[in-house]
């Protein structure tokens, strides 16, 4: 059924309509590289829907379905159940959704899949707001970030997706970042190998929404990890592993200073944020000792 007009390297076409410097595109290409063509994908409306395609064109060479914003996990469950019913246990099922579609409106369906132990790989690319609809705050937007619905900066912190997932006692969950593609791909591979549901929560900077130069996406992603604003870790069968040297945290200014969305922060705000980031990091690293 698929008519390939331009042969691409890998399973994602070369030209996609993502913004220049899009972090999510790297996540998608990595996921496709690791999971391969024996995969079915669910994508909700949102930035990732650029890969679903438009009209008669799609950017993906694997079968996929674009569901509603809140049912990516349930749609993935349906694919898994049907494949199982047909005796097909080899085809991988991937739900690929943004933070809004995951931590806000999709958290219920995700919780259902995790509780039922459905063998589904769930990748949440986190650009920390509803970017496709025009940069509105989600529950994954960090404190102090300015969005179109938090113009003076968000006054609460973010929901902790991976901890929510882990509380369902699933076999594998991890955070990852596009600045370290090797680590990201290793985690997606692990997620695909476990017997049960898995979650990879990927930090995916967005030049359009975070207001930085598109050429700096990797730099911004790296700074998030180096400052402790994004913690790289994984959880496998009850065991936590930190994937970043905990002693080397840099001041948050090296991360927030790169982005327009934090421009309105006062010195006091920055102090608060630094304290919060440290406390959060310590809490996590404590868990991982």
């Amino acid at each position, binding site marked *: 059924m698929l008519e390939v007009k331009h042969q691409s390297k890998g399973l994602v076409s070369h030209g996609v309509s993502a913004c220049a410097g899009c972090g999510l595109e790297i996540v998608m290409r990595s996921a496709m590289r690791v999971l391969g063509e*024996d995969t079915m994908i669910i994508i909700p409306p949102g930035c990732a829907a650029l890969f*679903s395609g438009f009209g008669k064109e799609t950017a993906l060479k694997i079968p996929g*379905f674009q*569901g509603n914003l*809140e049912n990516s*996990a349930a749609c993935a469950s349906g694919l898994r159940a049907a494949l199982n019913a047909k005796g097909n246990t080899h*085809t991988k099922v991937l739900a690929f959704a943004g933070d809004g579609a995951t931590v806000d409106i999709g958290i219920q369906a995700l919780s259902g899949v995790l509780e039922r132990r459905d063998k589904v790989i769930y990748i949440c690319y986190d650009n920390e707001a509803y970017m496709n609809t025009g940069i509105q705050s989600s529950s994954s937007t960090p404190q102090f970030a300015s969005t179109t619905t938090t113009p003076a900066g968000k006054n609460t912190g973010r929901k902790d997706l991976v901890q929510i997932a882990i509380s369902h006692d699933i076999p594998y969950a991890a955070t990852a970042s596009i600045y370290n593609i090797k680590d990201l791909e290793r985690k997606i591979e692990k997620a695909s190998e476990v017997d049960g549901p898995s979650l990879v929560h990927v930090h995916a900077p967005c030049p359009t929404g975070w207001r930085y130069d598109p050429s700096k996406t990797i730099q911004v992603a790296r700074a998030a990890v180096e400052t402790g604003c994004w913690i790289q870790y994984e959880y496998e069968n009850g065991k936590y592993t930190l994937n970043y040297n905990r002693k080397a945290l840099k001041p948050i200014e090296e991360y927030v200073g790169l982005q327009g969305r934090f421009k309105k922060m006062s010195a006091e705000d920055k102090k608060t944020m630094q304290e919060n980031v440290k406390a959060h990091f310590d809490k996590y690293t404590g868990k991982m000792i």
Partner: protein
Amino acid sequence: MAYKMLDGNSAAVEAMKLAKVQVISAYPITPQSSISEKLADLVADGTIKAEYIRVESEHSALSVATTACLVGVRAATATASNGLALMHEVVGMTSGNRVPIVMPVVNRGIAAPWTLWCEHGDAMSERDMGWLQFYCQNVQEVLDMTLLAYKICEDYRVQLPSMVCLDGFFLSHSMQKIDVPTQASMDQFIGPYIPKNAFLDTSDPMFICDLTSPDEYTEMRYQQKKAMDNVFEVFEEYAKAYEVITGRKIQIMESYKTEDADTVLVALGSMCGTAKHVVNKMRAEGRKVGVIKIVTFRPFPFEAIREALKPFKVIGVFDRSAGLGGQGGPLWSEITAAMNGLNADIRHFVGGLGGRDVTETTIEKIFNELLDIQSGKSLNHTQWIDTKENAMTLREVTVKC
């Protein structure tokens, strides 16, 4: 053939079993719950070989069934009331992607006020969503109509999902003696599920349901409209085949003792049984009345209805849903549209809401009002036929301002 004592929910389950559904997504809601429970039992004891997914909501129930079907298996779910309302968003996905799921809807009013009991307001809220809707009079019809629905919906000329509507408690929990076709006969009648046009297969990849421009959206809707138009032909064809197997005639609509009637009442669902009984009783007393039972509400059988109602000058239509803000309820609106240009006085009755029984007395009162209008004795009818006189002071709280 074998006779079984089944309630409406068990009849729906029996049909799903005979159709050999392969994926079941289930979420309990009164009065549907026993469908979810019975399916779980049958999967657990191996009678149905299916994946049973205990979803966390009706929204997910229909999501699971829809995507499962896209992978090429026959998938099942069922719901009622607020559950159907929660599904609403996915209801459009199922029909828009032409996924032919057959879903029992155990009719119950939507909150508020909270009710557990029968009315058609839940299904009527979904009437323009591209699903076929069948309303059953009795438990046998639940079984027959569900089986027939698989055949109709999965036919390439239709390729649309359907709601098989059964009145909450009046049918869902009412035990009746049911003639159940053999598995072998239904294997032959329904056969395995064969996906058409849109399907997910790693050896033949396609992406389903991406963003569609104004350049194609209208045409895709038009395809659904044409599919709806095809339903009656397909219905008749398979109803004939089903009659050969079972001896039972399933109709798009049924005229009951209307030939020489002075007036008729049009209705949906279980109340048609009561109405037929009242017709028999009144005819024994010399009053010539009849009933038109509509089974297929979506698509609405305009031509057949117009033909059947043509001889009548005074017609009553009973809506078991309020149709708030409309000139009349959904059934009345459709009947009135079907009769456009014909000189008929079409009277609208609302009742049976939130579980209120539509009794013989109510129906007899309606017929008497219609006969009085027909004979010129009266001009008026009681639109909200079974409403109490104290309606406007019910639970009134006096607040001093």
